[in-house]
């Protein structure tokens, strides 16, 4: 049965359902017993200290401990922020990402990293990372970017059941976003299946995570001037549902990619490069990237808001493709 929930509640429910379902699932992170970031509320009471671990401030140590536990049959869920992954890159890259291949398939690592991206709220340069493009370049992670409560819950549940290292990039700008969610297995969302958030015929807008609502707002504005925009949410970047994007461009001939990450070597760059190779003959206009400016995140709100994509920037880019 479906119900309504906000993004952060959906995550909480996914964790509860999977911990109920499988006793090998446990969660670890900093101050999660008291749910400092909100997603782990009620877990301690329900599952006890043995399965809800508050860690010392040692991300490299406990990210790696999660890997080791996963190798011997556990299914750890690790809570963190994207900005705290830098100190743990050793374990993320050299162990989680590489281990299975390096050992010829002997290692199986069902570990999930839940990394919240806090940006847009004056958190400044040290707490505003949107780092999924860097992890896309490194083989070995399944990379999930839910933009709705349904996908936040469904992709996390699928990730916990998946047998490979997964990173869920949870978008902090969406924490309070409401939507309908399912319960139990009905809530599962498959990897590699993009969501056509809105159908259209003139221009394809591929939008990632927090950019999806912007793209939908932009699509409404565009409709006002008679431009029909199709909005595609890839939902997972590894694997990436190329087919849905290529088909849409085949229909519209125009592409705008909206990505909250820094624009150089971004997910938008990757998607643009795929389309310019595989759907070149369908294109009727240049591919437009709308991504974060290549500067760090300034604290002051008057500057921070200028960094990211916005509905306005998307509208401008989409119009530009139409003028061609």
């Amino acid at each position: 049965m479906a119900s309504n929930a906000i993004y952060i509640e959906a995550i909480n429910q996914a964790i509860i359902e999977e911990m109920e379902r499988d006793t090998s699932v446990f969660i670890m992170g900093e101050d999660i017993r008291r749910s400092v970031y909100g997603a782990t509320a009620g877990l301690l009471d329900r599952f006890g200290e043995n399965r809800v671990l508050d860690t010392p401030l040692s991300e490299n140590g406990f990210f790696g401990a999660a890997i080791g536990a996963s190798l011997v049959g556990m299914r750890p869920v690790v809570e963190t922020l994207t900005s705290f992954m830098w100190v743990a890159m050793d374990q993320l890259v050299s162990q989680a990402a590489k281990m299975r291949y390096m050992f010829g398939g002997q290692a199986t690592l069902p570990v999930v990293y839940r990394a919240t991206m806090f940006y847009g709220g004056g958190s400044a340069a040290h707490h505003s990372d949107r780092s999924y493009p860097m992890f896309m370049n490194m083989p070995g992670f399944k990379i999930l970017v839910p933009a709705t409560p349904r996908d936040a819950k469904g992709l996390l549940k699928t990730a916990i059941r998946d047998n490979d290292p997964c990173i869920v990039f949870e978008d902090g700008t969406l924490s309070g976003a409401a939507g309908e969610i399912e319960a139990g297995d009905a809530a599962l969302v498959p990897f590699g299946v993009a969501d056509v958030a809105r159908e259209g015929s003139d221009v394809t807008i591929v939008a990632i995570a927090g950019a999806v609502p912007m793209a939908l707002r932009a699509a409404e504005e565009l409709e006002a001037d008679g431009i029909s925009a199709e909005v595609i949410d890839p939902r997972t970047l590894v694997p990436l549902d190329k087919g849905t994007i290529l088909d849409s461009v085949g229909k519209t001939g125009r592409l705008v990619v909206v990505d909250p990450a820094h624009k150089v070597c971004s997910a938008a760059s990757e998607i643009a490069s795929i389309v310019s190779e595989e759907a070149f003959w369908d294109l009727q206009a240049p591919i437009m990237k709308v991504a974060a400016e290549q500067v760090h995140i300034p604290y002051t709100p008057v500057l921070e808001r200028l960094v990211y994509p916005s509905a306005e920037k998307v509208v401008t880019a989409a119009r530009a493709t139409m003028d061609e």
Partner: protein
Amino acid sequence: MENISKEILVQMLERMWLIRHFEVRVMEVHSAGEFTGAAHPYIGEEAVAVGACAALEDTDYIAGNHRSHGHPLAKGGSVKGAMAELYGRVDGYCKGKGGSMHLADFSIGILGESGIVASSVPVATGAALAAKIRGEKFVSVVFFGDGASNQGACHESMNLASLWKLPVIFLCENNQYAVTTSYHDSVAVEHISDRAAAYNMPGVLVDGQDAVAMYEASREAVKRARAGEGPTLIEALTYRFEEHSLGLGRVRRGEYRTEDEVGEWRLRDPILVHEQTLIDHGILTREECDAVSAAKASEVEEAIDFARNSPYPEPDDLFEDMWADPIPAP
């Protein structure tokens, strides 16, 4: 105590009051919505930074962490620059780009506060390395928490500093908790200062509520450092009187520490402790102490007025300050 100048004893009170009033007003204007973002009050811990910085020269360096307002003010950084930074204005230390967690006033050796826990420890170690390579006499002090002490960066930096006898002081502010986590649940040893033995350097456990004790321990460590005898690890036992951070309403104190515990520590308010010392030793009268407080309170008000009237950056400023030798934007 005997061999501490009256000037320093009074300056420590001034700086503690400055920080206290600064933080109290920050909590007020923040909850009034004058600016947003996280901010981590230093209330209750003033003696730590103030005592340590009283042992430093302007030519010495400090680096700190997310609990970031006390360190620069203790080192003598501009109050207006600090407040304007919190307000996100062009007259802030960082022209509004850094905010609360990234206060820095390079003009007097404040190499900046780091939002990423323990991340400034290697940096401060490097400033000390420069002193050694150039044969200069400056030292550097890095402030980090009990939680931070569990980061690998601390281990690597302390080992490096001791091996190379670098003039750096590792100042661990053990305020008993990392957000909601007691240090007993995150540090496997009883005293963080005991870890100094693992690096063959002196480890000192100090009453962080007593500015004089902090000053004396720091002066000793600075002497060692300047003499080329290497680093010192100082653990200051202190307490965070307020919650972890402004804007983290979700975490209520009662959930991880008792009112009694907070109450007992409040009895050892570092300002009360230091004023008592000054009065007992006939250095200041109660009235003079109150005058210090009043003077600092108005200095903070001026800083708030200054900050409120300072302009926000212009849109084009977004692309400034990325490079010392600029390159075209991609």
